């Protein structure tokens, strides 16, 4: 039976983010905080309307679920939060943040700063599979995040 399970794992690898050569060894809970205005600026020029509409409300695309769109929760005027309980332990995970106000500085509205994961500041990096700049990190089983 164990041999069959191992064979199945080889034939049907998990469809999660991270390198295929780095299998996950479980899942961890990660709390994300994105520090940015929770209201869309009124002075965004008309030629950025499409970027704004597709970026609002501010949301995340999580790489370990094929960049599925997940809405963030506004907390006050300058803070967005998100908790994910299925973040793969081990491989590098990727995430993008779409923010309508970021359309003024990034053509597709992707944030490039002000994101923390379990209290650790993440650094912007290219995420080609996500369509723009995003963030990468690893997490251990106890929730320790490494940018």
């Amino acid at each position, binding site marked *: 039976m164990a041999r069959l399970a191992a064979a199945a794992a080889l034939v049907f690898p998990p469809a999660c983010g991270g390198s295929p050569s780095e299998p996950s060894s479980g899942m961890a809970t990660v709390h994300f905080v994105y520090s940015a205005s929770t209201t869309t600026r009124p002075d965004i020029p008309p*030629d950025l309307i499409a970027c704004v509409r597709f970026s609002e409300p501010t949301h995340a695309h999580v790489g370990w679920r094929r960049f599925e769109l997940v809405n963030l929760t506004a907390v006050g005027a300058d803070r967005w939060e998100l908790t994910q309980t299925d973040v793969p332990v081990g491989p590098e995970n990727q995430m993008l943040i779409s923010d309508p106000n970021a359309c003024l500085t990034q053509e597709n509205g992707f944030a490039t700063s002000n994101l923390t994961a379990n209290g650790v500041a993440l650094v912007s990096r290219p995420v080609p599979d996500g369509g723009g700049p995003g963030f990468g990190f690893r997490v251990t089983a106890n929730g320790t995040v490494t940018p």
Partner: protein
Amino acid sequence: MRMIRPDAGLNVTNDPQVVEASVGHSVVRVDFYYHIDSYGAAPSSQSAMDPPTLIVTLTSPPWRVSWPLPAGCGNTVSLLAVGFDACGAGNDTGLVTVTTCKP
């Protein structure tokens, strides 16, 4: 300005699908976009997420386009049309979100 078709919430299977917007008389240009919010039962290799894609820019009516569906079934896709007048002022339909199936 509003999207005439498809209706929000539809499961779209016609490929290509006609996407049409109703606009005001002053509109001289309409840009149609789509964005894949999430993939459905796609192959595991289909893990890339694209930014919004411009389907077409029209400068005269009718304000409609034949939109080739993305591959796969169960995709959640948002459509948007943005109209501009001769002075460059813009308005939009708001996002219309549908699910698509192109086996």
